[in-house]
């Protein structure tokens, strides 16, 4: 049986124009691998929205990265001040991976 290792998955829901900033913040704490997943719409305290590529202002993506416990914590610390001001949603969960050294 293949051995798996525990890692942390961090998912950040962020407005498309702000993705480069999140990527830069992540790189600042050593997190350089990520995948972007699209969204179609949603609702929250700020009301309902649906994907709007024309203005670009209402288009959100999920910045997803799998990394070590330490780096995940560092990324969370670095992003916490922005959660409110930039309207981010941040989720952390535990996943198992093969080839642990990759993450």
């Amino acid at each position: 049986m293949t051995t798996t290792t525990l890692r942390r998955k961090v998912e950040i829901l962020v407005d498309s124009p702000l993705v480069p900033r999140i990527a830069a913040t992540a790189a600042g704490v050593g997190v350089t691998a990520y995948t972007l997943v699209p969204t179609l719409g949603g609702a929250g305290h700020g009301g309902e929205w649906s994907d709007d590529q024309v203005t670009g202002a209402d288009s959100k993506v999920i910045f997803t990265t799998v990394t070590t416990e330490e780096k995940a914590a560092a990324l969370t610390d670095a992003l916490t001040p922005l959660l409110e001001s930039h309207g981010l949603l941040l989720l952390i969960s535990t996943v198992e991976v093969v080839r642990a050294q990759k993450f």
Partner: protein
Amino acid sequence: MIASPAALLSPVILFFLLGAVAAFARSDLTVPEAVAKGISLYLMAAIGLKGGVEVAVSGFTTDMALAALAGLTLSVLLPVLAFALLRSFGRLDRLNAGAVAAHYGSVSVVTFVTGVEVLTTGGMPPAGYMVAVLALMELPAIIVGLLLARGRGDDAGAGAGAGGQSTGSLLHETLLNGSVVLLAGSFVIGLVIGKPGFATIAPVFETGFRGVLCLFLLDMGLVAARRLRQARSLTLRLALLGIAMPVINGALGVGLAALTGLSPGSAAALGMLAASASYIAVPAALRLALPQADPGLYLAMSLAVTFPFNITFGLPLYISLAVWMVPA
């Protein structure tokens, strides 16, 4: 004539109304976002090309320089006026007032394009260089709006910390906003290829323009009405300003054009530019530069209030003003 409500019966406007009615009635009609974005790229390329080709024919003139100067002046001053109104009458905090002001100082490509269609159909086409004026007017208001939003620097939150951004990178990102690059680039291509080069691509960029615009305005009607329904932070005072500001700005635009000696068509077009509020270049830039400002607010005002007002009542109004103020 074209200033009459009959302009409301053009297919372009009717498709906008159809979209708005469908969204208000909660129909599930939607245009896929990728397609809407594709059409908006097409419209910007087409308008840029047409403007460039016309300038290639007419050559650079004093008129053109004066129009450019008038446009720049408006895009620097209008946000200041808007800011004052939004703070006082609108009761907005400084951050959001600056953000909204940037939108009203900048311009809406689709409002302009629709206005040009109405003007051309009505026999008073604006000069081709007005497209260059449009491109020039997209950006300065962003800078002014940001300065206003950030105030005397005591507003530490705005732009500071990990979310901060140097003025250099801001300028870079604004100047290189996709829509600005496409519009300006197509204008230059139009200049280079001139009439003969344009002939081979005219079936797509000229003959097809009005029909494609119909489909885009159908989507704009849907988007504007849905946004109005979903708007949470839009107060009555702000909605009123969303109608008052285009009227004031449009009148100032036409007035300045009259002083500058532009033709009636070009004066109406400058009025439309002044009256219109950006909903493509500015929101994208501000989401980066002022992430703390509320996009729900500035898009509701520019897209859900001002844009529909301009498309339906504003355009004929600015044309009337131009006919009245500018000696033909």
